[in-house]
């Protein structure tokens, strides 16, 4: 993972190695919903190279800071999703029991 172009801190391209659409598209989503972001997009320069370039331009804040905040947001969302999902599964099993168990009865 490395950071390109550092002359102007408010616009940078980040290269994420060993990553693909999975993370890049999620990051683009959360970055674009940040009011500090004026532009955000990503590209995979070559399909057989495991790397993505994330371009990020902000209204003035350092791009790395905005990216970090977005990652943080994404993590919090994931944690919430995990918590809600586990609770939903728990409620479901308490209520109905596993389908397989019902068949045996």
């Amino acid at each position: 993972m490395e950071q390109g172009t550092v002359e102007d801190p408010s616009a940078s391209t980040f290269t994420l190695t060993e990553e693909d659409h999975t993370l890049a598209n999620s990051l683009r989503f959360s970055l674009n919903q940040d009011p500090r972001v004026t532009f955000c997009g990503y590209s995979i320069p070559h399909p057989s190279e495991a790397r993505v370039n994330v371009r990020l331009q902000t209204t003035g804040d350092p791009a790395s800071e905005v990216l970090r905040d977005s990652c943080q947001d994404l993590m919090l969302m994931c944690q919430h999703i995990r918590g809600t999902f586990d609770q939903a599964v728990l409620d479901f099993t308490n209520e109905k029991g596993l389908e397989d168990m019902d068949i045996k009865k």
Partner: protein
Amino acid sequence: MEKVSVWDLPDVPEGQLPSHIQLQRTRVHCNPDAPTHTENVQYSGAYSSVGVDNSLQLEQFRKNFRVEVIRLGKEDMEFDMIGVDPSLANAFRRILIAELPTMAIEKVLIANNTSVVQDEVLSHRLGLIPINADPRLFDYKSENDDPKENNTIVFKLHVRCERGGPRLTVKSDQLKWLPNGSEFSLETSAAKSTAKPKTYTTFHTSQETLHDFSKKPIAPCHPDIILSKLGPGQEIELEAHAVKGMGKTHAKWSPVATAWYRMLPEVVLLQQVEDERAEKLVKTCPVNVFDIEDVGKGKKRAIVARPRGCTLCRECIREDEFKQDVALRRVKDHFIFTIESTGALPPEVLFTEAVKILEDKCERVITELS
């Protein structure tokens, strides 16, 4: 259209999108020719001119996000994930398929194979067998690592079809777990007369003493996968070494048979459809989305009874007759997620692990930035 003075138009409520834009934002419109409004508006300032903030607010997300489990079995589950962006739903799907580790047979040491199935074909078949072992209890084995109890599972397969007997079918339950590691001795060490001959693995302890493998021995998930058929006099003797890996290296390590999602279909009757027309509408739908409701006095009208079953085949709006009456849409933030596990881990655990992996990815970026 009738001419109306601007001053007579109703005010757009502040902080709220006009209903038609809200509809475009939240629904995919499935028209007879092509779907429209398929894109998701992500830019935070997209609606700033009407005073609507489109930025990501965690509080809002927490309030709206819902999970509803529809079906949960040992190997498959279906649940609704509501209030989440497709990029996240797709990330989970991609992780489930390609980035969740499992154990799969990677190396096959063939001592004897006189069956009609060639060595390489047999090895490939062995590789695809799902193995009932929790991958979280094992480490990845890199090329330079010795095969040890914490990164390798060894199976033995020795079947022989006796002459004069009937033909044999070799199934996956013939694979016997060797908790003490390989039993084949290395040829180079055969000359030395040490107490214990060196084998292809270096296990320090038996795997039976680790975790709770003694209670739940490691075996293929399904006992009835056909590997080969043996004729009289044919024999297979081999050892199979399973290691931890990920689906993006090879599909045999994918923990799911499939994992997919679809957006919730929404079928709306824009106008009342009554009597004969209602019956005709019910008949047009191949998956029985519509139903007929009696409204008394011998009157009948069509209702949308099972919108979830709609496959959006658009059969109902193909002819001109119902084009104005029926609207087919998809809810953009409502995902019907289905996971089919291969058996190593239950589907609900798979999903939680997938979410954890996305968290780890974010964390990696954060640590790299600071």
